[in-house]
């Protein structure tokens, strides 16, 4: 299925899509976007890459194992909820930094949670995709 046009196009599309996905993730709290959408866009980027270059290439591109990504994401989401416990609030109370960081914007535990969601979504879709494509 790999054609020259597709493989060349994905080579340039890939970084753009990944950048877009991170952008969607970070702006999600204030504008349409968020961890689910961001993760799906990133997964779509890898899916395109898989079709163009094959599973092995795509896996190398991802660097980490997709299943590890699921675990990391779940851990991140869970951990983001526990910060509030140290502050004496109930589990998963959102905590925010007072100052804005450059480019990322305001940082708080919900952003961390959303990043966890992002990782899980990428991990899940790619685990499924790779398993089906290799089969």
């Amino acid at each position, binding site marked *: 299925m790999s054609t020259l046009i597709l493989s060349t196009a994905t080579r340039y599309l890939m970084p753009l899509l990944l950048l877009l996905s991170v952008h969607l993730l970070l702006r999600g709290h*204030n504008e349409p*976007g968020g961890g689910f959408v961001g993760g799906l866009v990133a997964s779509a980027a890898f899916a395109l890459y898989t079709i163009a270059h094959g599973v092995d290439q795509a896996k190398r591109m991802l660097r980490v194992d997709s299943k590890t990504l699921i675990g990391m994401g779940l851990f991140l989401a869970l951990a983001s909820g526990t910060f509030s416990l140290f502050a004496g609030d109930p589990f998963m109370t959102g905590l925010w930094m007072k100052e804005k960081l450059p480019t990322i914007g305001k940082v708080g535990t919900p952003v961390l949670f959303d990043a966890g*969601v992002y990782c899980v979504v990428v991990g899940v879709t790619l*685990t499924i995709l790779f398993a089906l494509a290799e089969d």
Partner: protein
Amino acid sequence: MASLPALLTLYFAQYVPRTAAGECFIFKTPWASAAEVSLSFSLDGLSVLFALLISGIGTLVCIYSGDYLKDHPQRGRFFCTLFLFMGSMLGVVLADHGIVLFVFWELTSISSYLLIGFDHRREAARSAALQALLVTGAGGLALLAGLILLGQAGGSMELSTLVHRGEAVRSHPLHLAIFLLILVGAFTKSAQFPFHFWLPNAMEAPTPVSTYLHSATMVKAGIYLLARLAPIWEGASIWSQVLIPVGGLTLLTGAALALVQTDLKRLLAYTTVSALGIMTLLLGIGSVSALQAATAFLLAHALYKGALFLVVGILDHEAGTREVTELGGLGGAMPVTALAAALAALSSAGFPPFLGFLAKEGMYSATLQAPGAWLPTGMVLLASVSFVAAAGLVGFKPFLGPKITASRTPHEASFSLWIGPLTAGILGLLLGLMPGAASEYLIGPALSAIHPGTVSSTLALWHGFDIKLLLSGTVFLLGTAVYFHWPRVCRGLNFLNASGGFAPSRWYAFGLEALLRVSRFQTRILQSGHLHLYLLIVILTTIGLVGASLLDHDVHVGLGRWKDIRPHEAILVAVILAATVMVVRSPSRLTAVVALGVVGYGVAMIFLLFSAPDLAMTQLSIETLSVILLVLVIFRLPRYSSYSNKLERMRDAGVALTAGALMTALILAATALQREARLVDFFAKNTLELAQGRNVVNVILVDFRGVDTLGEITVLSVAAIGVYALLKLKDIRTNDTTPRND
């Protein structure tokens, strides 16, 4: 191992002087507050007596089991379940809230199940465990219903409040149902006729378990419950009208069947059934002297029956058999065990000055004062004769007389084996010698809990020459006679065994078989193994239920609302519908997949048009991924083929269209109503202030409902792992079907 129950015993013992002074301790903490269930416990004289028995005999049993199961590979599991039982049983006797009582009640049934079936490789142990669980579990459900109704009738679920509201309960229209349901719970647990059959079968359990659960503690939970709730029915004629006959039947059944057993454990089990019958009978009589006798007998019975069971365990362990005919002359080899056995047996036979004697004297005086005095007295006398003979068979026969050569040479049991029965036996003697202390600290306080406001008369060893002493003497002589002529008595009564005196256990077997038949039958009907039939059933049921309630309500559909559609929206809707038809009708897989993609993108457009940009983006990315996924898979799947005939297709199409129409009607009806706006307003007002975000959808997902999202991504992860396992682990046992359970 034994230190935990020993400490508990001390803990409860320190309350004794205070409960004896009439204090009642209540401990309460909220649990399921929505259902108004709080974890409330109370400690009064009755609870303390039971708690002491549970933890005290528990201590002895733990010491004993340590040695008894010394080399058993699953000793850990044994102690684990034993402690589970101990905790639940303490819960039963301490609980003050009906629901809490029920929870612990069922926990004792479950731990009893695990303990009877401890030796789970034997079929007999498994079926006995199941039988005990089903009988007591069914009774537990009846109890639950009874307790809930009782709570409604009495206006409280706290037992300590309910006992003062007897008037309200007895005048409730459902009073009879409440009464009978609670009795079924108590009777199944305490092995009353006709539910008695599970107890002898439960002797499949290891002996320490039989000692602990099936003689000293668990089977008395029913008696405890009756005693606890007795004040509600104080003076009510229905109470004695039911309890006296049931108790009488139980005690006669147990007493007669005990004499035809040759297995010592089963023999003891039937005398336990009989003893439980006596307690029910005494509670049924309900006079102060009867309640006092019941409490004294409960204490005496727990001590001597526990000891006798432990002695049988030692005999089994050391001589290798429990058959009474194969045991004899072991006294020389096992002097300490023989002493313990003799102490317990004498108390059981009601020989002065043991506690058993005091209890029997109390019983006679209670039954003699009861209405129709000679009938209950006669029944109790018969049971007592049987007890004397049984005490002889268990406590003396194995140790006296000519030595019967057993398969192995018996020798004295180790310290940790004999200390238990010996302690219990000595306690039975000491309490008998100090009747004043026994009644002041243990029996009296328990009595005043059952029958508030009574000051019990002190138990005494010597009442002078009166009819009770005469009865005791006669019983003793008769019992001894039965003991010496036991083989003949046994043959004489053998028709009980042969004629299946166990009719109730046959009902049980019949009921179980019928249940299995029904479930097999309905499984064959409902679980046909055809997906489309399952779906048909589900869909038709939904259509029926939802349709009926739609028809039932006055629905304003408001079809006129369609006019606000705009041209581009109309085109979009047309495209979606056309693509949907194509998915269904297309003969080619690829066309169908593409058409499905069109539907998905169309839905995304709807989201976009109607103010849901987050959804639109998500739907678009998912749709892309889905198409890629399907393209990866679909060409490795077989081509389309039509398996069903035209008639089936028509039927399915009809059902599907009806269901679709129903959903349409549902939406029309629902959207015509005014909607609830409280929740929406909350999010609209607080999103920025509480969660510092402007995108409300995202804020709901990561902040307000973050725990839900956490659950959802966990589900996603599970799905991915499932896919991975399905596709990657196929090399392992491809052709191997998993073993089926039956």
